[in-house]
């Protein structure tokens, strides 16, 4: 157990460093929402999911859907670190002709199962994949990360009703509850009120875990749920820009274009992470 968590934490550190470098190379991008999903990606790809980088379409693999598609850069770092494609490719993010577009595209990038970017749709697709496996009595699991701002989209709630009604126990949903959307805080834009109560009322088991608490997340999801268990939603109580104090302290950090100051601060942050 200790070993697994140590491995996951090391992967999280590598994903964070790699994502910052990837975005810094480009000079702009979705820093805030990429940082807040680093730990959950590390838990999934470092300890829970079944996959084979040599055979991305291995039929027995688990599926991952980044419904909040703007966190693509963090997913790319994870996939590169796990060997789906060369790490050097990360430096082509958003460049002309790249295989790594701003938002994940399953036709372009090895290891990406679902194309996302228009918010609210990834969750329905994840439900479809989970339903297909359930109907065919296959053991594959499906994991989906939704943004808390993304919950503005009505389609998410259509999907939740469907998932709970059909008891898609093989689908685990994570809400990246970093409390900010592009234009401001959730409370200012659209108050989500009590998310946990909402999900329970919709027919889910819901857990709230600190977004960087890899051990608790791992323990909560490592064992597949049984047929008679309700599907699980994990609310990740995260911080936009998580793990980088410079980003965490910014008021608006959804999309950042690097100033000289930001560049220096982020390079310091990378050096600090690399030293630890």
């Amino acid at each position, binding site marked *: 157990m200790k070993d697994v968590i140590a491995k996951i934490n090391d992967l999280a550190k590598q994903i964070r460093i790699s994502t910052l470098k990837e975005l810094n190379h480009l000079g702009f991008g979705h820093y805030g929402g990429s940082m807040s999903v680093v730990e959950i990606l590390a838990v999934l790809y470092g300890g829970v999911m079944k996959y084979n980088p040599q055979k991305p379409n291995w039929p027995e693999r688990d*599926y991952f859907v980044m419904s909040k598609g703007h966190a693509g850069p963090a997913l790319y770092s994870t996939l590169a670190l796990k060997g789906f494609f060369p790490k050097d490719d990360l430096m082509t993010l958003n460049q002309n002709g790249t295989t790594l577009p701003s938002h994940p595209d399953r036709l372009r990038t090895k290891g990406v199962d679902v194309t996302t970017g228009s918010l609210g749709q990834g969750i329905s697709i994840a*439900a479809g994949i989970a*339903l297909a496996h359930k109907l065919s009595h296959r053991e594959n699991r499906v994991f989906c990360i939704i943004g808390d701002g993304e919950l503005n989209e009505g*389609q998410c709630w259509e999907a939740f009703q469907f998932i709970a009604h059909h008891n898609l126990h093989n689908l685990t949903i994570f809400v990246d509850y970093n409390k900010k959307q592009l234009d401001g805080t959730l409370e200012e834009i659209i108050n989500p009120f009590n998310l946990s109560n909402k999900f329970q009322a919709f027919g889910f088991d819901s857990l709230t875990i600190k977004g960087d608490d890899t051990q608790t997340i791992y323990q909560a999801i490592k064992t597949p749920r049984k047929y008679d268990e309700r599907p699980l939603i994990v609310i990740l109580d995260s911080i936009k820009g998580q793990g980088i104090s410079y980003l965490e302290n910014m008021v608006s950090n959804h999309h950042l274009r690097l100033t000289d100051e930001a560049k220096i601060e982020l390079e310091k942050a990378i050096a600090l992470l690399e030293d630890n």
Partner: protein
Amino acid sequence: MFIVENDPIEMRKVYSKFMQEFIGKNTEIIALEADLMSSMSMDSVHNMYPNNVINCGIMESHIVGLAAGLSIAGKIPFFHTFTAFASRRCFDQLFMSVDYQNNNVKIIASDAGITAVHNGGTHMSFEDMGIVRGLAHAVVLEVTDATMFRAILEQLVHLKGLYWVRTMRKNAVTIYQHGEKFSIGKAKILREGKDVTLIANGIMVAQAMIAADKLATQGINATVIDMFTLKPIDREAIIKYAKFTGKVVTCENHNIHNGLGSAVAEVLVEECPIPMRFIGIKDRYGQVGTLEFLKKEYELTADDIVKAVKSFP
């Protein structure tokens, strides 16, 4: 003479009968419904195959995404709802969840245009073919009668991609005999005449056939083409008969903008610009009424086609 006779079987029964047979042969088929299962005669199939016929409730956007996910995991999803809800309501889902990422989803869009009759203007879609033909990969079809519907459904099981099949729900007018073959992307030439070409789809094919008979009594010989594939459209047939007759009238149960008339005009303006007339909805919305009333109200009758033919100088 074209004999106007309705198919013995309703289009919805064609669909449910097909599903009943084919789910038995291929359990990867999943038929999705949006609380219109009884309207489509799918109840009994649902009872036979509860895992393959899923009534998802009234959540069209979600269902399109769900179908995309089913496709990614190897299933063959068909999704039926009314044309209005399958197009206007969930266009971004058709784009991003399905077409953009090459997912394999068949949309069966019923109650096309004025065939929504007593559901009225709110449920009448005169835009859907235009909306869907804007998707880069989509194949856009409107089936003419029961024989064609069945034949197309059989093909769709094996074809991959976004296929849009527009249809009415009740009995269509019989155009084809049992055993007729259909090739998606190839128009059906129903009669040949050198004076004018009538290009029609859906319920307008029968009207074009009646119009051709009426014109013949006046010494005007019409070619009638059933353009059941709107996209990719059969350019060859359009060019060949436009050159042969020198005049084209398009006939559709849809807005004349962005549907069949526009698609034919796009071909002709590049290949052989000739005079055209457009029979279809002219920037109006629908209303409740019987099919006969609505055909007259929206100028979709054989007489309207005859009038259009005679308006050429």
